């Protein structure tokens, strides 16, 4: 009993040093050596300033931008406070929220059912993507705000659409931040 107790203490210390300190530091070193861009969060620069991470969504509300999904990470896309809405399927708060968001979206693009991901919150609250359906739904508004044709905007959407990984993993998606940066580069807004 006493011998095992001493071993328990020493084993805790020894394995903490090996598995809790040396292991993560070695992995950090290797990661920084071989994959520095990924290991540091795939940051995107535009005009010399870091404007975000390719993997972390941002909120957009202006008509000239494609909008991300609703977010419940802090005050919305708060990237040090990830969370979802935690609303259950029969919670009237969820039903009412979706109803009012759907009505607002239908005002800009009437008579088209709203793609479900555009009015539902993601799990992380930081989802960088929307579905191609949600992007297509917003083309009408963005084209008008940017004084571009819907076809031109659709082309930008198409080249920012990622298919399934390896052809079958996951779902097709459009990265909203990259799409909007691409838009800014090709269809700059006047007055900005």
């Amino acid at each position, binding site marked *: 009993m006493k011998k095992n107790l001493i071993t328990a203490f020493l084993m805790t210390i020894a*394995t903490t040093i090996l598995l*809790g300190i040396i292991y993560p530091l070695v*992995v*950090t070193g290797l990661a920084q050596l071989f994959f520095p861009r990924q290991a540091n969060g795939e940051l995107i620069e535009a005009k010399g300033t870091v404007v975000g991470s390719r993997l972390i969504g941002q909120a957009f509300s202006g008509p000239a931008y494609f909008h991300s999904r609703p977010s419940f990470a802090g005050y919305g896309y708060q990237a040090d406070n990830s969370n979802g809405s935690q*609303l259950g399927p029969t919670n009237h708060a969820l039903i009412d929220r979706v109803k009012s968001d759907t009505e607002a979206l239908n005002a800009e693009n009437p008579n088209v059912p709203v793609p479900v991901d555009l009015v539902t919150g993601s799990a992380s609250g*930081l989802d960088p993507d929307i579905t191609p359906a949600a992007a297509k739904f917003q083309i009408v508004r963005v084209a008008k705000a940017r004084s571009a044709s819907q076809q031109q905007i659709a082309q930008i959407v198409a080249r920012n659409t990622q298919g399934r990984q390896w052809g079958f993993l996951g779902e097709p998606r459009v990265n909203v931040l990259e799409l909007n940066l691409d838009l800014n580069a090709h269809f700059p807004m006047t007055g900005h």
Partner: protein
Amino acid sequence: MTVNGWFQILFFLLLVFLVTKPMGVFMTRVFNREKTFMDPVMRPLERLLYRVTGVDEDHEMRWTEYAIAMLLFSVVSMIVLYLMQRLQQYLPWNPQKFGPVTPAHVAFNTAASFTTNTNWQAYAGETTMSYFTQMAGLAFHNFVSAATGIALAIAFIRGIARRQMKTIGNFWVDLVRGCLWVLLPFCVVGALALVSQGVVQNLHPYETVKLVEPMQVQKTDASGKPMVDSHGKPVMQTVTEQTIAQGPVASQEIIKEFGTNGGGFFNANSAHPFENPTPLTNLIEMVAIFTIGAGLTYTLGRMTGSQAHGWAVWSAMAILFLAGVMVAYWAEARGNPLLTGVNPHVTALQPGGNMEGKEVRFGIADTALFGTVTTDASCGAINGWFDSFTPLGGMIPLVNIMLSEVIFGGVGAGMYGMLIYIVLAVFIAGLMVGRTPEYLGKKIEAYDVKMAMLVVLVFPLVILAFTAVSSVNGFGTSSIANQGPHGLTEMLYAFVSGAGNNGSAFGGLTANTLWYDTTVGLTMLAGRFLMIVPMLAIAGNLAEKKYVPPSLGTFPVTTPLFTVLLIGVILIVGALTFFPALSLGPILEHLLMMAGKTF
């Protein structure tokens, strides 16, 4: 549901099938202390560890000493984790300058949670824990609690395999070999694979970036409440920056899955893009969750000299896995009928379905699959919130844990949980033919069955007792986020998750209260240690028994008939115990949802 979705699910099961034998053979060699290709690196390290900790590697333990060593190690390392959280402001690698983890009951809950391989999280990682606590406290426990689980399963298997012996191995040796040979090498490789896909791995402070479009948000006061002016209008402010959490994530992410721990670096767990950025990382993480559990079925067959029995157990697991994922995928793909004006249907441009609390890159199939896998095993990582699943979709994770997570299962814990069910299955078969039951040449007698029943009964007892108390008291119900039957499910899930050492949650429940921190903490400890001790008692008792050669009257444990019987016992014991609670929670909610009722 889509063909592509089903293809992904079957592809995943194929990968699990393919890793079963290599992993099983490897673990057999490691724990039989035979030569492996890693010996040149690991053997010197192993010897060094024994020297500094005073372990005699040739010493064999009876089940009682094995249990005591395991308990002492758990207690000591749990106290260290508690202190580490309370003192993290004095420790290194704390670029965000987090203070101690407060209040004390959250630190207790977390220490119990990570020591028991549960990883229930009453805190949000990125706003609470320093990098040091994450690495040396939480990820460390991810290793050793997993290795402890594997050691216990191996000890149980030795109990079956050994004949007329009093000992079942040496806990310290099994622990160290599990860490060094099984967990560590895979984690180094796996962590780098995750980094290559975008899982972050650094010790930098959080990154501040300039938003492309500034956003208007409602101001909050010091206590976090949204502020309104004297006319009741919200007070707005402009936010121009985004603070992006960083950290040594990949090294923790991989052991979190491989050791079926499940505790996320970030609050959103494997839904967070820095923990699980692509569908490929999602696949790697899911396969990692099942690898050891699947491998142990092969180890069971190999160590006991009955490979067909190992595969019969594997088959029972695979069938239960498929049944669960089928229901979860179906329910989530159907979506929420209460939402109006939205298009929830599958098209070429979207997967449709119930997307609240799910990520676009995973869609419905990968989220339903992940949710099933993480609760078949005692992992508890999530890539979508169960609280926002449809009632029947959310019932699958709940039921999976209620079945004691024996479907491939937690590392080690799944195997010894399954062995308890097997003992009961052969006992019932023995009753039916009127003979003393035998299992792989060992007579199963009154003592073994009593101990097995103890394991089986502790589980519902703690769950139902605590849920019942919570549901009729203000300190329990005030934590509920969603009213109606869903609220009962939230409370039930907390204790099921705790007792099953799973750690996933219906996340709406406010868990960091004195009541839930304390009771879920105790539930986790009971769910781990009150099950391990009787389990080891059976192992020790079996090891001492004589070998009885199979005869005509022996119920064979290698046939499809056995697989069916085993599934039957699992479902009867697990499901019937909890059916009343399920009918008041998810089943009732489903019926009310179909009738258009909201809360």
